């Protein structure tokens, strides 16, 4: 067990530590000013010293993120089913869906602010806008890729459309859905931070902006560290749920851990 753990996580751990040490040395050797790029140790220290302030900002951003991601998951899933049920709908909506992703949200920022104000709502909305697309697309593709033989079998047993969807297509689409969800979870924190940049009373985005304006770059990096850790945790959470929901589906491990996972499967 222990050995397997080392095999699984060892390489990532070694690489991370090496990069951090190189980073620390690079800054300490005076190649670059510590006011532009702070050292990893000073970032961790700053984070600890300012935790009372940063924790409040983090909670704000986290609320926006999880609510937005939840909304995106529901909307994405519903949209995918809707697209799948009606081919006409698919032809009409799909191009719009793709186009919607090409609009830089920065252009819409003033509108969002003037229409919806500074409250929690618009932040959740922006996160949802960021996140629903990968979920909807992945899930729609998953639904499309159902094994035709299975469907034929179901139809031969006089299954209704709804039954086919429930028993064959949706479960079959779940791996794709989780792939989309994993991408969305990674984006979601960034989406929330962007939404705060547009205008908010508090949150990690505002905190980064204030700290940057005050030349406290080390605090900007402290906020980035929090963001990165939380994004990783969200990503991990999705993987955990995937394992609970689809214990038979080991694809996630193959992707994440390469050979080690493969060997375990075999």
């Amino acid at each position: 067990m222990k050995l397997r753990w080392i095999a699984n996580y060892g390489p990532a751990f070694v690489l991370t530590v090496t990069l951090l040490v190189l980073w620390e040395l690079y800054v300490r050797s005076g190649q670059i000013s510590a006011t532009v790029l702070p050292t990893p140790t000073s970032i961790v220290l700053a984070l600890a010293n300012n935790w009372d302030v940063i924790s409040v900002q983090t909670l704000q951003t986290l609320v926006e993120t999880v609510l937005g991601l939840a909304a995106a998951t529901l909307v994405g899933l519903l949209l995918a089913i809707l697209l799948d049920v009606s081919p006409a709908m698919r032809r009409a909506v799909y191009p719009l869906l793709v186009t919607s992703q090409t609009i830089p949200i920065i252009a819409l920022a003033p509108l969002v602010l003037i229409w919806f104000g500074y409250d929690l709502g618009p932040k959740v909305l922006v996160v949802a806008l960021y996140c629903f697309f990968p979920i909807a697309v992945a899930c729609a593709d998953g639904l499309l890729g159902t094994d035709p033989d299975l469907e034929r079998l179901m139809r031969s047993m006089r299954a209704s459309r709804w039954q086919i969807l429930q028993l064959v297509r949706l479960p079959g689409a779940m791996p794709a859905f989780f792939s989309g969800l994993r991408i969305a979870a990674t984006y979601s924190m960034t989406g929330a931070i962007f939404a705060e940049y547009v205008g908010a009373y508090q949150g990690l985005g505002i905190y980064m902006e204030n700290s940057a304006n005050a030349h406290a770059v080390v605090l900007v990096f402290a906020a980035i560290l929090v963001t990165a850790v939380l994004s990783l945790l969200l990503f991990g959470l999705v993987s955990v749920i995937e394992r609970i929901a689809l214990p038979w589906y080991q694809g996630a491990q193959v992707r994440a851990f390469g050979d080690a996972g493969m060997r375990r499967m075999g």
Partner: protein
Amino acid sequence: MNSRTRLLLSIGLPVLLIIVIVGGFLLEQRASNSGSATTTNTQTTPRKLTTMTLALDWTPNTNHTGIYVALAKGWYQAQGINLKILPYSASVSPDTLVSSGKADVGISSTEGIVADAATGQPVVSIAAIIQHNTSALVTRADSGLTRPRDLDGKVYGGFGAPYEAAVVGAIIRQDGGKGVFKNVTLDVDAMEALKSKRIDFVWIFEGWEGIQAQREGLKLNVFPITQYGIPDYYTPNIITGPAQIKKEPDLLHRFMKATAQGYEYARTHPQESAQMLINEAPKGTFPDPGLVFASQQYLSPRYADAGRKWGWQDAAAWHGYPEFMLKAGAILDASGKPVKSMNFDALYTNEFLS
């Protein structure tokens, strides 16, 4: 695990997580709300307060001190105003918020106000926060660029305003240069870019970035723009919109009364007022309180000349620089054509200061 438990778990876990996070958030909010409520209750008689919103032009700094002083002293409440300061937004200007009615008042600049009038989004300056211009073009002391005409062909780190390049070009020409330079719009802190030599010069407020540079030991060549042929002007300004002037003149009067009180106090009490700014601004705004004190020392005597009341605006200042900007072709209308004339007297008023 059967399939039902799996389904329940995979839906229940995220729901549980959301409930925990939202619950924590609500608890935290309640705690901070009750904290602020007790501090404000102590000094007010139960009088109905009118809520008023103010949009900032930048994260809180010493240009805004008077407002935070008046907040700390309860002077807005004494005028029956519950002042809410909207957080600064990098992508939506206070002018837009004021003219769209999302904010009652805001902080802007002479440049912004003139540009707004040209594009049909009029706002009105109701007070000059600083009587004389304290902005300057700066280069690194070790760059060998010692006067504006040296800046020809160099890289300027701008903030993306439409009038910016024309004004900077005119400053260089006033000093005998050609006024041709490269303009990079930076979303990041221009001073950081200057420090790392990615750009050659920037346009800053001496009272904030200038002092910041001093404290960081960065040596600068400073070209105060009014010493290089630019007419003196007020910056920043407190603005409101024509609609607000029509709808709530009394409210604006009371707002300005408290605000003027705040700035008058800040003129004579730099130390105390800087402390109030630090206390009243959102937590974490000033990682370096020393900068606030140093900047306040610099700025307090500059809010207005000795013997003059704070905030008053003269016609001369509202004709000189705006005229200069129009001549330089810096002001474009909504379709992108240069504006040649404008009624400058409609851009400001002292009526709420009396």
